[in-house]
């Protein structure tokens, strides 16, 4: 390592085992409604700038917010799925001046959020506490122009208010995560839950799921929390892991060299793989929250909450447990992956339809990364059955699977279309007999018990049939001819 790199906190020694990383995450998810949280403009990703706007999302004088019923229902679904208590709530104004919010405040929930005191369980079985999951509106998007594109040198900014007022749920977890890996599992689990209950599409790449992470470190065994830094601009699970690993190393390096951690908001830079200070807490904003006078309190009736609870679909945790029951020897990672990709139903149906669990799960995890397409559970079970009977090799099965994903149909038809159909016995017999008479020397050595010659004959058959023949059947035939 160069002297320069060693001098930069975070690029020094790898994380010391005497330190523990503590991570708490805030996940913001855009709710999958048709319209905005407080107005009837469409809630839709993309579109020309400033085409999904109305007086409320522009903060025009005299406009008044009216709460979207669907957004409340989705928030309750999320709260229930996260084992939260659903309570009466009020909206508050979070005051700040920034052009992404034209009315100079964001409507959020502050001291009385709709969902409190929940938990979720990671695929590892560890439970993470959820402090709250509250409703708030999203902000507009600013783009910085000029000055070389760097924020601090920007010539001016352009603002698009399409996103302003889109409903968000902010899920605040307790700082109970202890590594980058756990943090990734947590976000993946939150995303699975959001998608499962239909609350959000969970697309990090489109910004509909965003994560702020609070990272601190402390000596192993300590029960006091260290000074934390908040990291923003983490746009994928991969950058989340990288950002946490970098940040915890940076903090450990500072502490081991006798320096203090400054409480800061830091920006993750994907290109240089580091976090950079944005502003220190000393200049933190005083948001002067106060109850939003233009909105009435929200107090969902127990009947409504109960009805939403009844309509909740099966949650990822329960779905994992069900899959483990039918495929008990599968890795926990693979079970989690199948559920995360929403292919657990397919796996269950294929296994219940007679497919061998190991082979079914292998296809789900390794060969169906882009989704099942036209593949039906029966076809998957049938395909696995053909593999079991030796009618298809693993390589052939993969190609048959690709055909089934693209066009549907039965595995038998797909195998035939690829020329993989099992060979007719008579055809195989005449082929073998022909080989025997064309290779008399090899045949007599085989008959004398030279086992190596089995490979020769099988190889010749495979070559002639371009791999269609079943090797086992050829061997049996050779031995029966030997008499």
């Amino acid at each position: 390592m160069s002297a320069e790199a060693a001098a930069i906190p975070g690029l020094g020694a790898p994380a010391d085992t005497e330190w523990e990383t503590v991570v708490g995450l805030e996940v913001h998810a855009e709710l999958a409604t048709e319209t905005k949280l407080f107005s009837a403009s469409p809630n839709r990703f993309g579109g020309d700038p400033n085409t999904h706007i109305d007086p409320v999302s522009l903060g025009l004088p005299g406009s008044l917010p009216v709460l979207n019923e669907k957004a409340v229902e989705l928030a309750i679904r999320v709260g229930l799925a996260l084992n939260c208590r659903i309570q009466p709530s009020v909206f508050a104004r979070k005051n700040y001046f920034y052009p992404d919010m034209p009315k100079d405040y964001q409507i959020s929930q502050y001291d009385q959020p709709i969902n409190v005191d929940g938990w979720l369980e990671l695929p590892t079985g560890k439970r993470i506490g959820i402090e709250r999951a509250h409703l708030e509106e999203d902000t507009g998007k600013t783009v910085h122009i000029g000055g070389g594109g760097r924020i601090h040198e920007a010539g001016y900014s352009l603002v698009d208010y399409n996103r302003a007022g889109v409903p968000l749920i902010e899920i605040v977890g307790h700082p109970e995560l202890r590594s980058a890996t756990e943090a990734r599992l947590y976000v993946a689990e939150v995303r699975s839950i959001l998608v499962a209950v239909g609350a959000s599409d969970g697309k990090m790449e489109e910004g509909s799921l965003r994560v702020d992470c609070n990272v601190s470190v402390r000596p192993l065994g300590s029960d006091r929390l260290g000074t934390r830094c908040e990291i923003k601009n983490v746009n994928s699970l991969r950058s989340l892991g990288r950002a946490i690993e970098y940040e915890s190393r940076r903090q450990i390096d500072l502490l081991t060299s006798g320096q203090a951690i400054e409480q800061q908001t830091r920006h993750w830079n994907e290109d240089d793989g580091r976090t950079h200070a944005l502003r220190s807490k000393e200049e933190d904003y005083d948001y002067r929250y106060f109850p939003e006078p233009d909105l009435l309190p929200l107090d969902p009736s127990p009947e409504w909450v109960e009805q939403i609870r009844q309509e909740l679909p099966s949650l990822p945790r329960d779905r994992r447990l069900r899959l483990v029951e039918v495929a008990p020897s599968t890795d926990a990672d693979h079970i989690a992956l199948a559920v995360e990709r929403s292919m657990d139903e397919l796996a269950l149906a294929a296994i219940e339809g007679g497919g061998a669990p190991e082979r079914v799960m292998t296809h789900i995890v390794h060969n169906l990364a882009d989704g099942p397409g036209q593949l039906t559970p029966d076809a998957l079970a049938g395909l696995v059955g053909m593999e079991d009977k030796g009618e298809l090799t693993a390589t052939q099965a993969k190609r048959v699977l690709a055909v089934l994903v693209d066009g549907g149909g039965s595995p038998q038809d797909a195998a035939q279309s690829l020329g993989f159909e099992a060979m007719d016995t008579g055809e195989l017999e005449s082929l073998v007999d022909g080989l025997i008479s064309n290779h008399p020397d090899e045949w007599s050595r085989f008959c004398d018990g030279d086992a190596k010659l089995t490979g020769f004959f099988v190889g010749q058959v495979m070559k002639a049939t371009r791999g269609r023949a079943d090797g086992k059947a050829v061997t049996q035939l050779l031995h029966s001819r030997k008499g």
Partner: protein
Amino acid sequence: MGQQRITRAECAHVAALARLELTDEELDRFTGQLDELLDHVAEVEALEIDDLVPTMHALPITNLLRPDVPGDVLDRDEVLAHAPFAEDGQFRVPPVLGEAP
């Protein structure tokens, strides 16, 4: 009037948060006025209210909800015509340092 409840510096801080530019004379005057307001709040705070249920809102109504049905949007050109500066269908604003708070 009892002890001073707000200092001149606190008043200046609140004004700065609200992006208000106050002269020295205004700062003196508003510090005094805010102090009187806080005196009034202190009187309310002194009341015995143990028997009262907290009020969440001035109106005794909850759950005013709107169905999730798209409505009209504003015409972009008309909206941008009212903006001091516009460019590429967007509002053009002075550069902002850092990211949103």
